[in-house]
């Protein structure tokens, strides 16, 4: 039987994989993809609760409404991040995050 715990565990695993990608990779584009994975993990969790949660219907719908907002913000964030990466590449000739140390103390 499919249950809420399945969704929660999948969400946690996806979030952990995304976190590993953000922390361990050096390329800015891969880090961006990993952030998208983490946002998707959050969406899986919200959708799980929207489907299985023992709430009033208005509150279950809210889960899906929130996912719409998360997806929109993710798109905005992605557009800006890609712009920053292109700018970075043009100025420094590299898209590795550890070479961006201009503001490092």
């Amino acid at each position: 039987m499919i249950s809420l715990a399945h969704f929660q565990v999948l969400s946690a695993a996806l979030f952990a994989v995304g976190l590993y990608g953000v922390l361990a990779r050096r390329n800015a584009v891969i880090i961006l993809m990993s952030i998208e994975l983490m946002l998707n993990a959050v969406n899986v969790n919200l959708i799980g609760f929207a489907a299985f949660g023992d709430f009033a219907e208005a509150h279950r719908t809210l889960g899906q409404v929130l996912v719409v907002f998360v997806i929109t913000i993710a798109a905005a964030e992605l557009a800006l991040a890609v712009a920053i990466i292109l700018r970075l590449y043009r100025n420094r000739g590299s898209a590795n995050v550890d070479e961006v140390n201009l503001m490092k103390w």
Partner: protein
Amino acid sequence: MVTPSLVLFYLAGVLTLGGALGVVMSRNIVYASLGLIVALLGVAGVFLLAFAEFLALVQVFIYGGAIVIVIVFALMLTRLEDFRGLSDHKQWPLAALAAMAIFGVLAAAIARTAVSTQERAEVGFTVLGERLFTDWAVPFEVVSLVLLVALIGAVVMVRPTGDRN
């Protein structure tokens, strides 16, 4: 009890996690973006299993289409040769430890917390649309404004600065 929906869920879950691992493990960035497509389509499958048809559609269109294409554009506009043979940070074992730790904490929290659940229930297209355009109309308009401003900002940022240089 093994039901067809459970089998499908495991299939979508394996697809999602496999694609995600492909993103974070692969040495070639093109394979990483293919892994991202697989992961996002797996998530769309998971959405379908939770009866969120509208969001599954949105996931395929926005994520599987637009977002992956933007990322591939980013690869195309930066030189692709630089992306072969990607390397990890030196502290990747630490990162793996952190990821496993957060998974452990979350799994423990999931196991310990009792949530009152019900049978899987659908939130229909009409209900979702009604809520989105009545109770959540103002946030919806604000978020579309945010998206517009972000896109304009992105265009301004990547425009070559001819007058300064």
